[in-house]
């Protein structure tokens, strides 16, 4: 029986590999997701057949039913605009589950007094339990903080205190030291106390690690935490010596890390910089003084300009998600198209609060696939564009990133809307973006501001066309 179970785990691992591979291409992505879910189903079913370990199905039935129900309802009811926080929350649950698996195994080991028959390598087991607790704990509380920030329940601004990085580094090293100590003295009377201390610090570290990161850096944080939840599962796999956990967890860990690096590159920053600089929020350091003034335009005047435009580029940002303006934006896009204009949506890799955030929202609103352009495809055409409409995006269109060497975001690739003939910037107020920087774009002579709620503004433009 054990041989059969392990063979089935290999099949499940293969299904995961194909699933991830197919998720990487638009044509096969949905089937890929289905295939990987079949792998998961297979892994769960054959595990249930393991009568050597599983002696009672009461808790299992209850737990599976409860979890599946909650997951089902959450997935069906979530609004597309709430997607980043839901993914963060799911991710945190995965991390906490791995932590609990490690905790349960530690309890079992203590109950069995680390009996040789069940624990041939007690030091190794103790150490990987610590890893599962450590990574799982950081993933859990880190994702929870990310969830709170994304859903606006706490401020998205970074929270800093003096010596923060040093303090976190000391905590982390202390954790590793305690983990090694626990691995050597697992049967010591104080082992349980040490174990709980490690768990407490890991949970604390997750909070401390994410609070200094600003909302603008959330795409990086979310994909990094996603990678961590995979590694936590892999660590749990080492704890119970199970190969499917190791393979699947490690695949997620590695692919999540790649995505994280892609996000960092899109902001021209390193991972260390994102985690330890506390930028992406309040720092206003550097940057030359911006000259000129911000000029507002009325809806009516904006309508006349748009009416004459032959080529329009829409640059959406987090503001579009907040205002839930994607449907109105799509409506405006269709009207402009009927009016004879060519319309494109230019999407910056880190626009929004999670990787690919804008793509999801515009897809929800049924914006045609061909109209979505990546940054590199649209930038060379920018000089031929009559009107660029910036909807709630800020740092990703700040020309200071290209031109002002003293700017904090200098070197970050941007969408060059300032090269378009006219720029309309939809904005709620005169405040700065998430990076806290003043946007030089808004002071350009070719830029006009449309103040107000993005959805209301776009809707009234649509009404103008209708009249």
């Amino acid at each position: 029986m054990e041989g059969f179970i392990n063979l089935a785990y290999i099949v499940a691992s293969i299904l995961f590999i194909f699933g991830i591979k197919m998720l990487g291409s638009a044509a096969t992505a949905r089937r890929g997701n289905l295939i990987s879910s079949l792998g998961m189903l297979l892994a769960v079913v054959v595990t249930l057949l393991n009568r050597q370990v599983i002696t009672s199905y009461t808790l299992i039935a209850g737990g599976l039913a409860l979890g599946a129900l909650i997951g089902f309802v959450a997935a069906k009811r979530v609004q597309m605009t709430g997607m980043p926080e839901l993914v963060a929350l799911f991710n945190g649950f995965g991390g906490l589950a791995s932590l609990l698996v490690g905790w349960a195994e530690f309890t079992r080991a203590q109950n069995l007094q680390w009996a040789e028959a069940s624990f041939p390598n007690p030091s190794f087991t103790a150490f990987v339990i610590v890893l599962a607790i450590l990574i799982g704990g950081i993933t859990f509380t880190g994702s929870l903080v990310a969830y709170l920030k994304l859903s606006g329940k706490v401020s998205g601004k970074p929270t800093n205190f003096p010596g923060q990085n040093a303090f976190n580094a000391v905590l982390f090293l202390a954790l590793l030291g305690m983990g090694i100590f626990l691995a050597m003295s697992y049967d010591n009377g104080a082992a349980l106390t040490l174990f709980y201390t490690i768990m407490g610090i890991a949970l604390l570290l997750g909070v401390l690690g994410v609070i200094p990161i600003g909302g603008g850096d959330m795409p990086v944080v979310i994909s990094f935490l996603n990678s961590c939840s995979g590694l936590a599962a892999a660590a749990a796999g080492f704890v119970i010596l199970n190969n499917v956990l190791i393979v699947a967890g490690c695949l997620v860990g590695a692919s999540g890390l790649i995505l994280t690096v892609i996000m960092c590159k899109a902001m021209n920053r390193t991972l260390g910089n994102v985690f330890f600089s506390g930028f992406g929020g309040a720092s206003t350091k550097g940057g030359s003084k911006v000259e000129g003034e911000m000029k507002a335009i009325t809806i009516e005047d904006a309508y006349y300009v748009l009416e004459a435009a032959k080529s329009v580029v829409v640059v959406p940002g987090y503001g579009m998600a907040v205002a839930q303006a994607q449907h109105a934006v799509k409506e405006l896009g269709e009207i402009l198209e009927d009016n004879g204009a060519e319309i494109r949506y230019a999407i910056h890799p880190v626009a929004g609060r999670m990787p690919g955030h804008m793509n999801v929202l515009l897809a929800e609103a049924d914006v045609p696939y061909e109209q979505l352009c990546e940054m590199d495809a649209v930038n060379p055409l920018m000089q031929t564009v009559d009107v660029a409409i910036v909807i709630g995006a800020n740092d990703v269109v700040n020309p200071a990133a290209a031109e002002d060497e003293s700017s904090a975001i200098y070197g970050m690739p941007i969408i060059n809307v300032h090269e378009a003939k006219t720029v309309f910037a939809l904005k709620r107020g005169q405040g700065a973006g998430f990076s806290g920087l003043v946007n030089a774009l808004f002071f350009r002579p070719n830029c006009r501001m449309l103040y107000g709620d993005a959805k209301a503004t776009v809707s009234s433009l649509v009404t103008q066309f209708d009249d």
Partner: protein
Amino acid sequence: MEALILLLFIFVLAAFLGFELIAKVPSQLHTPLMSGSNAISGITIVGALLASGSTESGPFAQWLGFAALVLASINVVGGYLVTDRMLGMFKKKDQPK
């Protein structure tokens, strides 16, 4: 000990495989890829099943396993469904208006 080395071996190979698999992914797929792989990380459900079903570990460990099982099933079921919902929206665009 040899069994451990073998597991480490698997771990390292899986890491390289993971890096190779998604070296180039179009940006519109970043969100589904992330939430899809997030669902896969719910594989820890296997550990949760074993922990909550094993009576030899004592009731406390079993209840820990139960909590892990609830959380992991939320992660798995919710993660796959949400990913499927998102990808379903992407698909619609291929059809003519």
